[in-house]
């Protein structure tokens, strides 16, 4: 049975455009094509200076941590899977699965960003590699920092899309829905940032303390206010996500989620290239 006969939407063909491709999707593919050139230049700049390092350039192998980078690429690949499942679920009109997939993608994206913050901290304060003290630092931080900014934008977009899925169908009857959604975004953003900070501080405390118990004790003593904060923002999220009538978000919005998904997968493929070109090739 064809999609038209079954009454289902065809998510790969738009009869209203001359190309058969939804305009939003066409625009996103063009943006991604231009971003390929942007990252191409950043990666080649890094590689040129790695192939012809000026005197005094530190050894990248002694600075990089292959274990941490492997973990972060695994996390980003899994976030891509969750994003693909989110697009798949909204195309079927399954709102519940869409929301859980989006939340998982946000979680994985935040873990990736947390790993990058940890890595940058480690490079600057322990390996003494900064953006200004060597050409390796300049090209490395510019490249991976730009990628990190793309991930951060992606996480923010995911948060907006998650909250957008709660917009009521009848906005005139549901008074204050806009303010409620703004607060929802703020609560989710605060939860993500507090969560990242708490995990990073826990790792630092465990590294510095002589035993696991001592590290946990120090962490709880120093960050109990942040823990109360994350419990509060978590409760707010549960409050905002409670069932409150029909919503204006269904499979007709699948194109918006798909566009966001394209961006997210692009960020993933850029990291696939960076992982090989910047990290792995240093080890051979």
């Amino acid at each position, binding site marked *: *049975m064809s*999609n038209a006969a*079954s009454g*289902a939407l065809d998510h*790969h*063909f738009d009869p209203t455009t001359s*190309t*058969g*491709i939804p305009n939003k*999707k*066409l625009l996103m593919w063009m943006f*991604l*094509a*231009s*971003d*390929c*050139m*942007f*990252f*191409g*230049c950043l990666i*080649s*700049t890094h590689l*040129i200076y790695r*192939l012809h390092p*000026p*005197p005094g350039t530190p050894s990248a192998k002694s600075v990089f941590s*292959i274990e941490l980078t*492997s973990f972060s690429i*695994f996390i980003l*690949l*899994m976030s*891509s*899977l969750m994003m*693909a*499942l989110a*697009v798949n679920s909204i195309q*079927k009109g*399954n709102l*519940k699965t869409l929301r859980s997939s989006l939340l998982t993608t946000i979680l994985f994206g935040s873990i990736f960003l947390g790993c990058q913050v940890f890595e940058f901290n480690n490079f600057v304060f322990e390996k003494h590699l900064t953006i200004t003290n060597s050409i390796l630092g300049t090209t490395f931080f510019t490249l991976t920092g730009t990628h990190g900014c793309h991930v951060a934008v992606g996480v923010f977009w995911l948060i907006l899309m998650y909250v957008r899925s*709660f917009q009521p169908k009848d906005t005139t009857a549901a008074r204050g829905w806009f303010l409620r959604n703004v607060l929802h975004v703020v609560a989710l953003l605060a939860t993500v940032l507090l969560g990242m900070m708490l995990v990073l501080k826990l790792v630092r405390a465990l590294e510095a303390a002589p035993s696991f118990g001592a590290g946990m004790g120090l962490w709880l003593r120093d960050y109990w206010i942040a823990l109360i904060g994350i419990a509060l923002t978590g409760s707010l999220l549960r409050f905002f996500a409670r069932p409150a*009538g*029909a*919503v204006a978000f*269904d*499979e007709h919005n699948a194109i918006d989620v798909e566009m966001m*998904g*394209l961006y997210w*997968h*692009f960020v*993933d*493929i850029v990291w*696939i290239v960076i*992982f*090989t*070109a910047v990290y*792995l*090739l240093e*080890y*051979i």
Partner: protein
Amino acid sequence: MSEPTPVLTSPGHAAEESKFQLFVQVAMILAVITGIEIITVYLPFARPVLFTILVGFSAVKFLLVIFIFMHLRWDRPLCTIIFFIGLVLGGGTMWALLTLFGAEASKPLSAMAEAARTVLAG
């Protein structure tokens, strides 16, 4: 909150179910390839061999993500053409820059000075 009723009928549903399984399978393949890549760098092979293997694995991962996760396999060919225009231009720029700066006369001056010092010291 009322959940929208899925409108796809059984043949569509079967297709969507298989897509779900395909996504999970591709994610597992990507994870396995990443694991193999990490092991590969420690293998005692010649540098050109390792380089070829790593670039090959990276290309496979790249293509799996764009064709399966980014739906290029199911979308109109124009999407693939547009993306590959950007990719070829980006890749071509990389190749051109690496070739230009690889030429003896174009090496960064400080790198040349270091090379000259090494030769003189040797």
